[in-house]
């Protein structure tokens, strides 16, 4: 199991500060969920980890800063599922998941027997065997999400980053996708960092929540500690009712302002 430390991480687009001196320690095997309004810097932080945007400060994986790792080594440590993955409609699911092996193949090389065996076992483990030869363009939203997660699993990285894994799914598929992540995390000891908008789902699956606002880390802790009506009112500008279930689950229900 692998830890992930953020040390004063800042991301800047031109003059706009997307993330400002973000510090946090993600423990090995933990599921940390970033929450916060649109533009809070959640996605930018995830994109910084995988090298899509440059950052200042340090991101330390298992004791070594990412600045000192090359792109392939970094991709062996961190797998990333973006909010809306690019899925070429004329690519089949097998070819797509095989891309997850890229970090293990040299520049001019091709996949080894081990790589293809690995991809086959991912299809089996994720119950996707029927999908192997389906074109990505034919898949439904829920199926696409599972295939995208399958590619990340094929990367065999100990850290999994998920940007809005449930945003385009119905409630059933939302649960299915998160259950899958939870199962993978337990089976493989993955450290998970996700960005999510659905606060109830975030609270029920993640071990810890971190609220971000305008690039800053505001507050972190368990769902009970972070999901408080006053906090959410302050940073989301929303009036909510926070409902505590006996089992510890926290449900966040937006309140309608006028009822006629």
């Amino acid at each position, binding site marked *: 199991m692998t830890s992930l430390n953020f040390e004063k991480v800042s991301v800047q687009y031109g003059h706009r500060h997307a993330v400002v001196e973000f510090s946090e320690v993600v423990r090995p095997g933990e599921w940390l969920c970033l929450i916060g309004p649109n533009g809070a810097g959640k996605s930018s932080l995830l*994109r910084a980890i*995988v*090298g*899509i945007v440059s950052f200042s400060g340090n991101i330390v994986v298992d004791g070594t800063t990412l600045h000192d790792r090359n*792109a*392939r*080594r*970094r*991709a*062996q440590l*961190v*797998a*990333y599922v*973006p909010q809306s*993955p*690019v*899925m*070429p*409609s*004329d*690519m*089949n699911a097998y*070819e*797509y998941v095989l*891309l*997850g092996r*890229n*970090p293990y*193949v040299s*520049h*001019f*090389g*091709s*996949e080894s027997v081990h790589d293809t065996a690995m991809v086959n076992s991912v299809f089996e483990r994720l119950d996707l065997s029927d999908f192997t030869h389906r074109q990505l363009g034919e898949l439904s939203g829920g199926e696409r999400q599972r295939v995208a997660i399958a590619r990340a699993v094929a*990367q065999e990285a100990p850290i999994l980053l998920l940007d809005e894994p449930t945003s385009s799914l119905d409630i059933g598929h939302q649960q299915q996708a998160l259950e899958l992540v939870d199962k993978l995390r337990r089976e493989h000891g993955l450290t998970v960092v996700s960005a999510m908008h659905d606060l109830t789902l975030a609270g029920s699956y993640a071990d810890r929540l971190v609220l971000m606002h305008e690039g800053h880390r505001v507050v972190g802790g368990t769902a009970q500690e972070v999901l408080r009506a006053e906090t959410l009112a302050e940073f989301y500008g929303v009036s909510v009712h926070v409902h505590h279930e006996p089992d510890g689950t926290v449900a966040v229900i937006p309140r309608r302002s006028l009822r006629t």
Partner: protein
Amino acid sequence: MLVLALLCGAMIGPAGPTWWRIPLELLNRLPLLTIHSGVSESEWNIIWLVRMPRVVLAGLVGCTLSIAGASYQGVFRNPLVDPYLLGVAAGAGLGATFVFTINRAGSSTWLIDPLPLAAFGCGLAAVLVTYVVGTAFGGERSSTTLVLAGVAVTSLVTAVQAFLLQRHSDVMREVYSWILGRLSTATWTDVRLVLPYVVLSTTVLLFHRRLLDVLRVGDDEATALGAHVNRIRLVVVLFATLGTAAVVAVSGLIGFVGIIVPHAVRLLVGASYRVVLPLSFLLGGAFLITADIPGRILSNPAETPIGVVTAFLGAPFFLLILRTRQASR
């Protein structure tokens, strides 16, 4: 298919022996084989010195334009891109125009023919300008900007060329016949001239076929998968351009091959670059050799430029692709 096209190309032509004797004679020329084909020595010269270089050159040009086209389509993730997009064609055209206006006749005493060199140099220079401009303003998402820069460079270069032609209207005919593409004057020297570039560029491109598949998921995700997106794009563009500029220098501008062939391959075997690149290479050679045949016999003894033939086939095919793409949305 490529072998078949090679044979057909060697067998069909306005002068020379009866067609069926030629494969026999070719076998006869192989070591350890003796077959009586009834082909005389002068007829063999027509085949070996006139037809064969032309067929081989057409094959090389077709292979290179097709694999370069498929590679460009891969790195720019744009199915309608072809090798000429980045200004190669316009640059090479300008280079040729320079040579013609400076007086081609006078240059025949030179040690080497300056035409291919000028076309090659200017084609490569145009692409470099496109690349520098495109990446300077493109920032992280350079793919679209690069294509736009190519369009700008192309129109600038074309304008310069038009200006030159206006000043030297006497060479207009020669320049246009070069632009329309010609394989008719091919010699073994031409083949030797392009062969090293073709071998180098296609080898490098073939080695990138897996990475072109990685790029299909976009720059961001390819980066997250550990690929050096900009480095891959630079290398592929450079080598595709190298091959293109080299073949353009000897064959003139032959359009649409780089679009038709890769798309035909995709329709046949799917879109993975692992198969699209090698098959485009093979099919492209076969296609251009075949396309060259009607050019030789249609208006015998005059020749229809091969660029006209490919454009005739290419333009409708291009529209067909556009239509099927729209229908599939």
